[in-house]
């Protein structure tokens, strides 16, 4: 137990170093934060439209508008409606969901390095998809949706159970360890399947890189209710997460149902990150990086962190997806690759600047 505590204290210390590092906070007053949130919303909407307009089939803003107001059945209009629109909305929703689930994971594990992946979400989804392709020859992106959602949920529930062994229930250290061990286990089995079967590799390689391309609007509308529930519950949880970040004992003393809140937050992670992976495959990086960027901008209050990180997550993924079309045209770079390329310099800048304030 003392060993556990030692690591736990270390992890917690690291957490505090982190927050202190980021305490230079860009927006300070309530007014600034509100205005900032609206600006983010405007930017998000702009990028949603830009994502519809720009791409291999180049159109103008005017044609794009006509495609929705005055549809004429042309190929151009058809692409805008059935390809670009879903892609754009999916990127916005997925980015927001991944960012929120990252915030929840980092609060639950009290570890700034945690991301939905630590919950085994991506590994579970990946394994489920690879099994379905190898054994049941599932073929379409549509078929992957529910398979991967299921895989993600099973993995996350498994992690939650293993992390809750013992009387003190779910502790940050146990969750972190259980999660990383289950994630490694699943992804190595996935690797095993891929090594045995080259056809499977060929088929799922692009899925495994994560992408918002080629998904139909139906896929989004099917999963959207789960995401929406996740968004609403996360917003409602925000003030309770503030209590949770003061430590379990203080939170319990103030009458917070700590176990229930943790379970709810974990369920949200399953809905959000599970839903995201179901639609787009494992898109990494957003879940771990956006929470840090958000805290650097508006500080430690979850009532601001959650809406802000949702906006910023959507913005990053949309921007990455638009750029991904241009880098090696006519081919496309997987969007997960682009998020890393855009996000990393920003992230490194914050990591360095944050510690300057000390």
């Amino acid at each position, binding site marked *: *137990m003392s*060993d556990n505590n*030692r*690591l736990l204290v*270390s*992890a917690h*210390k*690291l957490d505090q*170093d*982190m927050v202190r*590092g980021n305490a230079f906070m860009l927006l300070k007053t309530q007014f600034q934060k509100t205005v900032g949130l609206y600006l983010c919303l405007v930017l998000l909407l702009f990028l949603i439209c830009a994502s519809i307009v720009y791409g291999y089939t180049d159109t103008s803003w005017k044609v794009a508008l006509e495609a929705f107001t005055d549809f004429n059945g042309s190929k151009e209009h058809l692409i805008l409606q059935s390809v670009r629109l879903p892609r754009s909305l999916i990127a916005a929703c997925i980015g927001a969901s991944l960012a929120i689930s990252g915030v929840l994971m980092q609060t639950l594990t009290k*570890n*700034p*390095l945690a991301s939905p992946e*630590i919950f085994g979400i991506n590994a579970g989804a990946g394994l489920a998809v690879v099994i379905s392709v190898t054994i049941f020859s599932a073929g379409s992106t549509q078929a992957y949706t529910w398979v991967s959602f299921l895989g993600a949920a099973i993995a996350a529930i498994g992690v939650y159970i*293993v992390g809750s*062994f*013992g*009387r003190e229930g779910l502790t940050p*250290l*146990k969750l*972190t*360890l*259980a999660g*990383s*061990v*289950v994630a*490694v*286990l699943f*992804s*190595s*089995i996935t*690797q*095993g399947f891929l*090594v*045995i079967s*080259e056809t499977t*590799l*060929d088929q799922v*390689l*692009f899925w495994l890189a994560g992408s918002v391309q080629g998904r139909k609007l139906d896929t989004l509308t099917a999963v959207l209710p789960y995401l929406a529930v996740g968004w609403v519950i996360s917003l409602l949880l925000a003030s309770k997460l503030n209590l949770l970040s003061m430590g379990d004992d203080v939170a319990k003393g103030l009458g917070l149902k700590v176990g229930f809140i943790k379970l709810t937050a974990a369920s949200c992670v399953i809905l959000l990150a599970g839903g995201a992976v179901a639609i787009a495959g494992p898109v990494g*990086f957003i879940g*771990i*990086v956006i929470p*840090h960027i958000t805290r650097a901008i508006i500080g430690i209050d979850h009532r601001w962190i959650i809406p802000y990180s949702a906006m910023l997550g959507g913005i990053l993924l949309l921007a990455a997806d638009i750029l991904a079309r241009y880098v*090696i045209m006519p*081919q496309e770079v*997987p969007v*997960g*690759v682009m998020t*890393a*390329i855009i*996000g*990393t310099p920003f*992230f*490194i800048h914050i*990591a*360095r600047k944050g*510690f*300057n304030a000390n």
Partner: protein
Amino acid sequence: MLLDKKTAAIFTGLLFLLIFTFLLSAGTGQLYISPLDVAKAILGFGSKLHTTVITSFRLPRIMVAMMVGMALAVAGGILQGIIRNPLASPDIIGLTSGASFAVVSFLALFSTENNALTVSISWLPIAAFAGAAITAFLVYFLAWKNGVSPVRLVLIGIGISALMQAGTTTMMILGPIYRASQANIWITGSVNGSKWTDASIVTPLVLVLMGIAFMLVRHLNVQELGEDIARGVGSKVQKQRLLLLLIATALTGSAVAFAGGIGFVGLMAPHIARRLVGSAFGALLPVAALIGAVLVIIADLAGRTLFDPLEIPAGVFTASIGAPYFIYLLYKTRNS
């Protein structure tokens, strides 16, 4: 260094387990040879057939597997000590992904249309080592600002690691699928095809590096207590951190160069060791090294025998063997 009885017992037990798995692995394959005959063959008293099979085919890869397991486990233990975070491992600060990127680029750039390589494959380990070293340098350089703090190191590591993975994915998708699957095997980690030349390079390298690591152990104990305490007891924190980081990089680099990105060992072997013998690194690092070696040897054995004639990379099995055991340890210590 004080070793209590329990630690000594666990260490001895693991050592015997290592010897046993070593002999078992050397004896198992298309031709089964009993452990006794294996021992005879190794010591030079075996039959000619046994000696040939064992010394020229099986021993080199087992040696490589053992060294790689030790190297990764010790590197992981060191990094967890420096960074003071249970999620620290050679993967998280980008060492493995840097090496993977180098290897995949190597395969993609030097391939011709008909899948032949334009340069000798023996350059591959060197590319991997260079990838790990350059990444480590980059991370350290970007994290430097009046010294390197553990948090900054790990955050920048995550960033760089994500970039490297992005690069790897791009290379795999752009390149031909044949190369992609070859690269995939490499990324998963395998000691298949190791020869005596490999073993004779990796063995002394890892042993020397581990020797240095064990000598630096007391600095690691102090580092884990945090910057202030470390400085308070007179530790030259920055210098030692750099030195330890160099050792961890060199260990990871040598492992990755010869066996690819074998996962799990660097992350979990130190945790398993921690649960067996506690936190003092004097006991933890050697025990972690033994666990790492046993894991990779068994994983390799499983990989070449379970699905015979298919050869599964050892990296697939390290987690499959280690993870259930770790979950059992979590479960067992649930009340303490």
